[in-house]
């Protein structure tokens, strides 16, 4: 309970903080941030030299803004013009040519430059602008179950008292009318009580047993500690990295695939420190993002400042979270590509998860329910053109077009769709 509350508190604080900073930046520069992340961040930081130079003050370094545009769009071509600054830069950075971005519009480059100007230099303002403490005053959410429990208890006591009072009154009345008093039977020998208790025990016990048995082998909410604290909040949430960038297999085949070290290093050769909002693990302890990136470097065999030799990388042994039994066939591409199902449908709000937690119980009932309700891409996907009868029935209104063609309707709940 305590744990949950602190997570709730943290997330609300974090959310408020975001609202605060995002509203303070101009809309223009916000676009610039996204563009910067997508195009520049793998080689440049604002205040730090990476593969390429630090970009703070870049506008002032270039005499002519038009030259800067030309350089960004196609550096190799610009070098040929013999511009001395450009050539010096090229030499300084080990003759590594900058990627060409011919599709960037002038406004977009301006937006990136504007964003660069808004980024404060951490060296100059070391303590400034830190995130608010998670212990901010928050309204505690009332836990209703405790309240209900107490209420039930009180009511039960009251009814017991009332029963007792009723019995006593009856006894008094009987005494008055002179009816012979029966020897009172203590409740533990009262057969109706015993019978009632047995039935209740049977029902409750049976319910618990069968529920327990059904949950065997299921692991909803499973959230193991991983070798590296990898936060989906930071990557998929804050930085809006497309799921497919890392889980490229999800659109192609059976496995979504966990990215290999070289995919991580595509970005993290440049991004070597974490200076986003504070991160907290499942136990509520703060996690040092930069330290986690260093852990990645250890696996990758990467020494900062030196070129990375990919052959030195060792695979990361992640703990597998979503486990299906061997007799189940599940194919990601079928759902994500053919069925256009969002990742979140099965994995929950992954962009808000720190370490990943199993969102559903992955039980067969859960699968089947979804197959009963979900519509296939009946009109959009050419594969379904062979279901001529259904197409006609949809047109003629024989089939409810609002309900559409569900997965079940074309055989999606049959055994051998998943078991073979």
């Amino acid at each position: 309970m305590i744990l949950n509350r602190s997570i709730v508190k943290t997330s609300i604080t974090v959310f408020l903080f975001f609202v605060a900073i995002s509203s303070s930046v101009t809309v223009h520069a916000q676009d610039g941030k996204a563009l910067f992340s997508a195009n520049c961040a793998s080689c440049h930081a604002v205040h730090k030299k990476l593969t390429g130079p630090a970009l703070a003050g870049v506008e002032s370094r270039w005499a002519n803004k038009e030259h800067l545009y030309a350089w960004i769009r196609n550096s190799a071509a610009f070098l040929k013009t013999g511009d001395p600054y450009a050539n010096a830069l090229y030499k300084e950075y080990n003759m590594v040519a900058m990627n060409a971005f011919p599709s960037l519009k002038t406004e977009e480059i301006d937006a990136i430059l504007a964003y660069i100007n808004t980024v404060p230099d951490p060296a100059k303002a070391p303590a400034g602008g830190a995130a608010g403490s998670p212990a901010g005053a928050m309204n505690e959410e009332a836990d209703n179950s405790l309240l209900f429990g107490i209420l039930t208890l009180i009511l039960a006591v009251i009814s017991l008292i009332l029963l007792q009072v009723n019995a006593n009154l009856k006894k008094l009345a009987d005494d008055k009318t002179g009816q012979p008093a029966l020897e009172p039977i203590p409740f533990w020998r009262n057969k109706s009580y015993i019978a009632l208790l047995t039935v209740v025990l049977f029902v409750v016990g049976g319910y618990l047993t069968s529920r327990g048995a059904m949950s065997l082998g299921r692991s909803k909410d499973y959230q193991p500690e991983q070798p590296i604290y990898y936060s989906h909040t930071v990557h998929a949430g804050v930085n809006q990295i497309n799921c497919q960038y890392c889980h490229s297999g999800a659109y192609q085949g059976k496995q979504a695939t966990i990215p290999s070290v070289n995919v991580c290093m595509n970005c993290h050769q440049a991004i070597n420190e974490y200076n986003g909002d504070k991160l907290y693990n499942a136990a509520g302890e703060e996690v040092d993002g930069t330290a986690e990136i260093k852990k990645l470097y250890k696996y990758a065999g990467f020494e900062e400042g030196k070129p990375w030799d990919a052959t030195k990388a060792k695979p990361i042994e992640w703990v597998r979270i979503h486990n299906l039994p061997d007799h189940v066939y599940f194919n990601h591409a079928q759902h994500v590509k053919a069925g256009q199902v969002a990742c979140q449908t099965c994995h929950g709000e992954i962009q808000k998860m720190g370490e990943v937690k199993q969102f559903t119980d992955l039980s067969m009932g859960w699968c089947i329910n979804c197959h009963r309700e979900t519509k296939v891409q009946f009109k959009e996907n050419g594969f379904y053109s062979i279901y001529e009868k259904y197409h006609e029935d949809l047109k003629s209104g024989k089939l409810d077009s609002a309900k559409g063609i569900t997965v079940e309707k074309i055989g999606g709940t049959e055994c051998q769709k998943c078991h073979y």
Partner: protein
Amino acid sequence: MEQKKHWQSFGELNKSEAYNKDVKDEFKEDLPFVEDESKSFLNAKAPRRDFLKYLGFSTAAAAAAASCEMPVKKAIPFANKPEDVVPGIAKYYATTYVQDGDTVSIIAKVRDGRPIKIEGNDLSPLTKGGTSARVQASVLDLYDTSRLRFPTINGKESSFEAVDKAIAASMSGNLVILTSTITSPSTKAIVAEFLAKNAGSKHITYDAVSYSGILLANEASYGKRAIPSYHFENAKAIVSLGADFLGTWLSPVEFSKQYATGKKLDEKNPEMSKHIHFESVASLTGANADEKYLHRPSETLSIAAALLSAVNGTEISGIADAKLKEGIEKAAKALTSHKGAALVVAGSNDVNVQLIVNAINNAIGAGGTTINWGATNNIRQGVDADFAKLVEDMNAGAVGTLLIVGANPAYSWFDAEKFKSALKKVKTTVSFAGKMDETAELCNFVLPDHHFLESWGDAEAKTGYFSFIQPTIYPLFKTRQWQDSLLKWTGTTEDYLGYLKNFWTAKLGGTAGWDKALQDGVITIGEALTAAGNYNGAAVSAALAAATTAKKGGNIELVLYEKIGIGAGQGASNPWLQELPDPVTRATWDNYIVVSPALAKTLLGIDLNNAGQADAYEVNPPKKVVKLTVAGKTIELPTLIIPGTHPNTIGIALGYGRSEKIGKSAAGVGKNAFALASLSGASVNFSHTDVSLALTGEKYPVALTQTHSRYDTEQGNRTEVVKELSLAAYKHNPTEIRDEREKELAPWGGLEKFESQGTIYPVFDRPGIKWGMSVDLNTCTGCGACVVACNAENNISVVGKPEVLRGHEMHWLRIDRYYSGDMDNPNVVFQPLMCQHCDNAPCENVCPVAATNHSSEGLNQMTYNRCIGTRYCANNCPFKVRRFNWADYTGSDSFGDNQKGHVNDVVLDMNDDLTRMVLNPDVTVRSRGVIEKCSFCVQRLQEGKLKAKKDSRALSDSDVKVACQQACPTNAINFGNANSKESAITMARKENPNRQFYVLEMLHVLPGVTYLAKVRNTDEMPAHHAEGEKAETKKAHTEKAHG
């Protein structure tokens, strides 16, 4: 229609008691209820208290096992993911199956770095996507636990560096490289360079079953020691003198493909090639022949001579047997009436026979049409005389170093003892065998070679037709390609890959050409020439003279033959091949003496026309053991009675009795029959004209599968399951089969309305897909490639001989063998039978837990995790295609001890971590106590559908190919969406309305598999035709029928 009476077993022919009992029962063995019924339940073997104890224990055990904590599983991605590899998605690489000389272009399916399935390469102009059982099974050899894992010096582990040093030090003059046939041009170049470097060295080619006879005869007739290309597809008349070209002779996959084009029947224009076969022991090709004649092996030469004179129009002499004489005349007539489109082949290794065959082929104008000298066949190059000479040289101490590649003469040379003692006289002996075979065992140095799926290479099966080998997996063990060793020892710094690349980029004009060739796997260089060859008939007269003086055979003669799975012993260590029932004998896991029914009567005292004796022979697996003596050598083997064998001839399969060091499945299986061969002239003779037989009084169990899975209808008219008619009868009345079906179904609405009127159930809609299969019995040769392909694709367990003996084999697809006609020389029909996916399936109704039910796509689904093993479904299946996991064959149970005492070593070996790498990860491995059966390769169907969905298009035929269909070398199996108007399956059904039938159609189970009736190209007319004919057609046909 009065069907030909077909029978599978002697019991069925006689309608014996055992047969009648068998067809009624679900399983072959009795259920384990042994209690006397008079005893009360409490006194029964498992009384109530025990029952409760077991119940309590098993509940507690299950609870304990289930409540254990979930194990923490790891998900480990690549460190650096190769760009084109996606876990879970199969990659396909073109490569080539090479086994000694045999060469088949293939595609290897690689899942997550492991090759798991072999498919034929459609681009190959030779095999055109066809495969054989051995090709299909070869992927299992890669994961064989008995493969050598490091090089050895005198049996001790060593490293390649050390071995290189030691060999360099001990390599001495008079070096010989002994190989099986090499088809690789680059390897030949490497060998030539190596020989040039070592003065006085030479290269000898040795083939276990050689084609010396043909090679030498061709040298005499055409001036070339080579084998030409054969083109069965161009032949309207084919005569084979004991050449099993559909099973084991030369290049069976290529020939099957060609042969099938001549056997494919166009219903509108019913013409077929005519195949007349002469043989001594029943073979696969003989079974497929239109007409078959039996003879003694000693008569082969005189038959060839007689055929030559008949073709030349002279009177036949020297043939006493009237039937045989008639056969030769018929063959000659067929050949001469199709001059330029006729072909004669002979399996004999006798030069004289082959010389006469060359003369016949020359006389019928086969050169340039059915025989092509423009592209020679390179897959057998060894001449036995060369090897015999080598053995002499070795004995004389004239060989200092012997390098052995592929060849295994210590096992397969007829005089192995002589070779072994000669080997001891060679100072340095080096073997490159991948396994510790009989020859490698005797060598000083063993440098294990890669498996072909780990190798680089090329192959030229036919001159100008190249096929490439590329590795599909990183070498599993410390092995090295022998070409690399040779290059090293020549002093070349380049490795074999570099050599190969240079060799080919020069030829193909750069790396792009090389890459393309590797990607396609095949390339043809130079327009394929067609040449008749320069025939020189000088040697024929001597051969004909030899025919007149040929020695007469004794009472019993012997033929040594190869089996389709085992070959000359290469398949012996492969459990899939050992458990593949031989198409002809339907036996697994053994070799035996094949005897004819007539000989069985005199020798074994078994009269097969006597129901009791037939039952006694058939029901009990132990068969009588016979001691065979030939030229001082003896061998004791059990006997199998196979109709279609000459009464005075017996047959024994080669390739058995191998060393247990090459694998668990070879250990103690059969006996080596190579020792019974003999050297006659320049070639090894695999027959013997005089042998003696004696009963030993012992019996030995043989695991025969023909009497398993027998089935019948209540009416006992199971003969309906296979339909066959002659071409003459078909031409006379093409709709005969259709009419008969119509008549039979007339009470239930006839063909059209049978589905709705034959039942009280409603007819279901099948929108979308309806899977269907069609099997053409006319082109199916029964070769068994599909059976092994099914094993590999669907993770079907190997159960081992003791389990096959009990009828527990697990094959989802079996090929039933049917006989009809004369018991001594019957016609044979093969029928592949798998789950028929009945739309009104009897198995579905009886499952108490709905573990088997029907899908909207027409699949009869089997859900293993739901099955509780009542086996009601198997009992109710009219086709007996359901298989029950009697024991934990896969090692998938939670309790490891469940396998102990129930499965044999071979099965345990299949469950080794190494062997399990061959498993298809898309198919569940079944555990004990569940039923399984053909799923129509549902994993492939789902994959194909997904492919279409991802591309947002309708399903096409190319998306889905089931394993058996893919493997088939004759395209006999068609599969697809029967709801689609354009699919191949719809076309196959539409184009063949007359031959089409369902098995046990009258039961109204509505199978999803259609069969096309077998049409045999004979003039034979059933008796009823002659009587009931219509006046206008009568004349023409009676002439034909009796002509």
